[in-house]
């Protein structure tokens, strides 16, 4: 066994130790001895010991396996190959123990026994196996109903929040939308055919518990159009201190409705006279703050759907972006034809115009929102901007003059 004096120091302390857990695989998985040995070496030298890249996969797919080889294969022969398999997770990361045991049986047979539950995009991650094990492992998984997830310049595995399965705020069925979209784009997920990666994430409300606004090219965030539902008797219970703010999850014993809710409302559309809470719903921006603080008194409305936002990605290459609004409200009902039509148009426009390794958000900035919206057949709406442009460098197209001649107005005189 390799000596690991540095890693051993990570076995103490109250937080669950990955080192302690990994060591339990030593009797059955010699490669984990080498994994700890190489990691110890990295801790000593402060540098990674994985070789650059690695292209491996399973027959018929171009996606889902991350090849990895140690740069010290003689010293750590168990890491000569140490590939990762991404396994597409069920919506909302719900499991039965029976399903997890089946996954473990397969991974114990074909791989290292090391897992990530889960990768940041959502996949179950099988961490560490040899090239020759990939295909039989995949087929063993498929026989149990699991398929490989995405990687490379492809659709990545969509993910979603817990949604209507266990949340009273979910404005559409995030789990079903995530499953349906994943099935719709199986070809694009398994066989990279895009300029770069493309991610979908589905959140049921503007709390955005899967961080779709920051971590998905296409962010689908639930929202409502009608009035927030108010239970005034529960409001009184909050005012009286019988109900605790934030469902009890804060350090504060009692809610001060005026200071904590009314005055923190970003649009100032609420008032409270000591017994009745009023909301001017036409001026509410659906931020969720009042609902978050008073979950037993307030709920989203019932005319629900989602906002579609586009473009987020991490800093490479042109700087990080968060997704921005392109469709303020759309219905979200199976089979989600409206979403699929827009998503299909986005992918087609991006595939046609995108440069190598250009995320769709970067492409829109390069070619302009107008070209993007026109390609999708979407109208310009004020909800898609924070503020109009300050510079006077705007374009006119022949189509504008034609529309003008046909009676289109840019101004009103009343």
């Amino acid at each position, binding site marked *: 066994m390799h000596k690991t004096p*540095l*890693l051993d*120091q990570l076995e103490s*302390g*109250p*937080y*669950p130790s*990955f080192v302690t*857990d990994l060591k339990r695989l030593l009797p059955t998985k010699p490669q984990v001895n080498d994994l700890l040995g190489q990691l110890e070496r990295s801790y000593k030298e*402060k*540098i*990674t010991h*994985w*070789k650059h890249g690695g292209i491996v996969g399973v*027959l*018929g797919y171009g996606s889902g396996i991350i090849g*990895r080889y140690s740069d010290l294969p003689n010293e750590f022969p168990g890491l000569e190959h140490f590939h*990762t398999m991404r396994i597409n997770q*069920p*919506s909302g*990361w*719900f499991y039965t123990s029976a*399903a997890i045991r089946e996954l*473990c049986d397969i*991974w114990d047979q074909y791989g290292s026994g090391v*897992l990530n*539950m889960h990768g*940041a995009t959502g996949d179950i991650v099988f*961490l560490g196996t040899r090239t020759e094990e990939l295909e039989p492992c995949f087929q063993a998984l498929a*026989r149990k109903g*699991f*398929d490989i997830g995405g990687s490379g310049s492809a659709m990545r*595995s969509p993910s979603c*929040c*817990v949604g*209507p399965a266990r949340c*009273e705020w*979910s404005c559409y*069925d995030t789990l079903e939308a995530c*499953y349906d979209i*994943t099935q719709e784009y*199986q070809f694009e997920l*398994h066989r990279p055919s895009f300029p770069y990666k493309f991610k979908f994430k589905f959140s049921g409300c503007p709390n955005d*518990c899967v961080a779709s606004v*920051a971590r998905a090219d296409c962010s689908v965030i639930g929202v409502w159009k009608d009035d927030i539902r108010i239970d005034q008797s529960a409001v009184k219970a909050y005012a009286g201190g019988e109900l605790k703010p*934030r*469902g009890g999850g*804060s*350090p504060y014993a009692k809610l001060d409705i005026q200071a*904590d809710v009314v005055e923190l409302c970003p649009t100032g559309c609420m008032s409270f006279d000591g017994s009745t809470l009023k909301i001017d719903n036409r001026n509410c921006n659906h*931020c*969720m*703050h009042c609902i978050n603080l008073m979950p037993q008194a307030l*709920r989203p409305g019932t005319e629900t759907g989602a906002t579609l936002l586009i473009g987020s990605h*991490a*800093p*490479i290459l042109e700087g*990080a972006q968060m997704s921005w609004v392109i469709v303020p409200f759309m219905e979200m009902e199976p089979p989600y034809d409206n979403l699929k039509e827009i998503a299909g148009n986005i992918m087609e426009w991006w595939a046609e115009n995108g440069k*190598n*390794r250009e995320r769709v958000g970067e492409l829109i900035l390069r070619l302009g929102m107008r070209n993007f919206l026109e390609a999708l057949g979407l109208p310009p709406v004020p909800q898609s901007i924070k503020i109009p442009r300050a510079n006077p460098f705007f374009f006119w197209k022949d189509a504008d003059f034609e529309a003008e001649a046909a009676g289109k107005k840019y101004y009103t005189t009343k």
Partner: protein
Amino acid sequence: MAEAERITDIGPPHYSKFLPPIIKENYGKWVSHEILEPGVLKHVAESGAELYSVRVASPRIITTIRAREICDVADKFCDGYLRFTSRHNFELLVTDKAKLAPLKEELAKRGWPIGGTGHSLTNIVHTQGWIHCHTPAIDASGIVKSVMDDLFEYFGTHQLPAQVRISLACCLNMCGAVHCSDIAICGVHRTPPKVMHDKLRHLCEIPTTIASCPTGAIRPHPDKTLKSVIVNEERCMYCGNCYTMCPAMPCFDPEKGGVALLVGGKVSNAKSPPMFSRLAVPWIPNNPPRWPEVVSTIRKILIKYAEGANKYERVAEWIERIGWEKFFEVCDIPFTFQHIDDYKFQAYDTYRTSMHFKF
């Protein structure tokens, strides 16, 4: 014939196979929830049905042994039903309230901490680090363990002004949530790539390598017979993206690489819009296995936030209210040239074009 039997394109299993009966019966019909205590949620449905969820810490990297143990507990107390969260905790789903106390006893016996709800510091979303990636400037799991051990008191309690999300990425590809977290730990290089001219033409596509550079620091080698590239080192800010594209351009340096800290990002829309995290500390040395300088700096920021923030104020909202100049002052963090954005036109939007500042 073997090929004909292959199963492909089936996608993930339908989630309905894994939902406990109480969720199937009350799907989309939940009316409210409470957080009974740190780590324990109670959801109530229109029908009056009650579901209890116990949230448990996980280091994300787990073995099949640990996964089977989690299944054992789920079998004993939850009829075999469980889920994982978007921050890699797992949740045991209990329908019988009487089972809550024995479940908590069982978790305590196993040393599995519960928490991560409400105004806590929950799990750290993180990446591969030295355990599996080829571009990291720092490790992931080791720093996460060190920070969570140090700030453990905040995981199982609700004592912060609002929830605090810490994330880690081992390089500036920022896999995960570093660009949008209250406190973010990001691996950074500080040395330009060393071009391996003899290997480059065998291993790399020169045009994609050149196109990979955000600052345009890479161009074809002036010696046309060499079929390689050169790096204008004064324009290189060590992002490592050329190494991602081209194995002949490693930029690792054990002593100069290290940790940058960012603060003030969020994704939720509550009160304020989603925000990017901003640079707080440009560099802290890599110091395995416990990264004490990283741990103590994060603790300092967290404590100053907890002391200074108003009720329900996220880190971003606290800093925006007091001003960045006060943030650096109260956290006693030196302000440096590195903090001032100089990346293309985005930089201008970060400069102060007003007289609104504090001395």
